[in-house]
């Protein structure tokens, strides 16, 4: 899966959770949850759905790496390549 495809998947899943937003307008270091107004429950649902879609395991101690687009995409690319 390419970098672009991962990005596309992330945007799709974010938009499913926050339908009235446009995740592609997120700044790389902006806090995703704050910007899209995502609560704790939806944040967990997002992590579950991204792990299912990309078939990667995201342990709880790594949740911090999912807070902004830059670190989330870097983290997922590394995971997918493994």
């Amino acid at each position: 899966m390419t970098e672009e495809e991962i990005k596309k998947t992330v945007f799709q899943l974010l938009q499913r959770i926050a339908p009235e937003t446009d995740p592609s307008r997120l700044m790389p270091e902006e806090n995703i949850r704050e910007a899209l107004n995502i609560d704790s429950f939806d944040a967990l649902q997002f992590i579950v759905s991204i792990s299912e879609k990309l078939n990667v395991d995201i342990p709880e101690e790594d949740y911090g790496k999912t807070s902004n687009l830059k670190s989330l995409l870097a983290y997922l690319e590394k995971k997918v390549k493994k």
Partner: protein
Amino acid sequence: MEAGTLVEWRKQTGELLHRGDIIADVETQKGLIEIEVFEEGTLEKLLVKEGEKVPVGTVLALINDGKAEVSESTIPAEEVPKQEIHPIEDRVETPHEKIEEGERIKISPLARKIAEANQVDISLLKGTGPEGSIVKKDVEEAISEGEKPTQEPVKKPDETKEISAKPATANANAMRMAVAAAMSKSNREIPHYYLEKRMDMSKAMDWVKEANKERPIQKRLLPVALLIKAVAKALDEVPDLNATWENGLQRKNEINIGFVVSLRSGGIVVPAILQTDSKTVDEIMETINDLIPRARAFKLRSSELSQSTFTITSIGEGGADKVFGLIYPPQVGIVGFGEISEQPFAEDGMLGIRPVVDVTLAADHRATDGLIGSRFLAALNRYLQNPEEL
């Protein structure tokens, strides 16, 4: 709750109904609810049209259970929404619909005449006469107050651009009015008292972290599941808070915790986690995973909206430090959890940085006093310091 609007019939006349079937959607002050059927039978007749607003207790449909020859006048009217959409204090009647015996409104002939002349809905009045009957004075007061409770302003649909969002907008407007009605009643009638306690969450958070290591991602716990369980345990110890105030304190046998779910479009829904005390933390998490998406999609069942005995509101990550709730009538308490955050915390003469949560309790001072509320918070804290016992 005083009235509900029939939004949609899900079943047609002549259809065979089974116990648990959803027969209709009704918009009420508690939000949009699905009306369940509690008997088997054939749907004989729909008595209320879609879009019609009717008082609580109105017969919505007739169901033929096959035991009697059906005719409109003799059929035992199945009062579909009865258990679901009327609180005990409301006893109502409409002239056009059949009402079960014993539900007739007590009103003096003079009062009825005045009410009819002024188009006052007597089902919304509280009687002050003998045995709670409505007398002339009650009706006159209602006229002078302009029937406040029924005059819900119709919101202008100002978001007409988004045509596809129309049902959601309608739901959101109904939701706003429902929250407004319930919270106004709460603020008007319930003398709240507030208590607050800061609780050390290190042990609870460690417990959740350890528990999550063993669980696949889909089964992982949120700290709130543990908080809900701890509240259920504390309520078991302090049953006066697991109650309603209806002509006095009525303790409830079951602990059904209502959990405030906020909607992205604005508004809140409060589904009940039935028998919270008998569920494990994992089962509570499963229930939340099921309830929250359905609550947000307006797909809750009437039983899930009507049976809570106490309410929890939790701010969650990234939000305010404290939340002071308004009690959902006729309940007598609501507990509020702020964001769990790292704070300086002193214990045994030592200062450390720990995850802590500020917990508030709002309780009905007619039902309990501060001592009871304080005992509840102390019990809750004790459980959170011993998460392995939950």
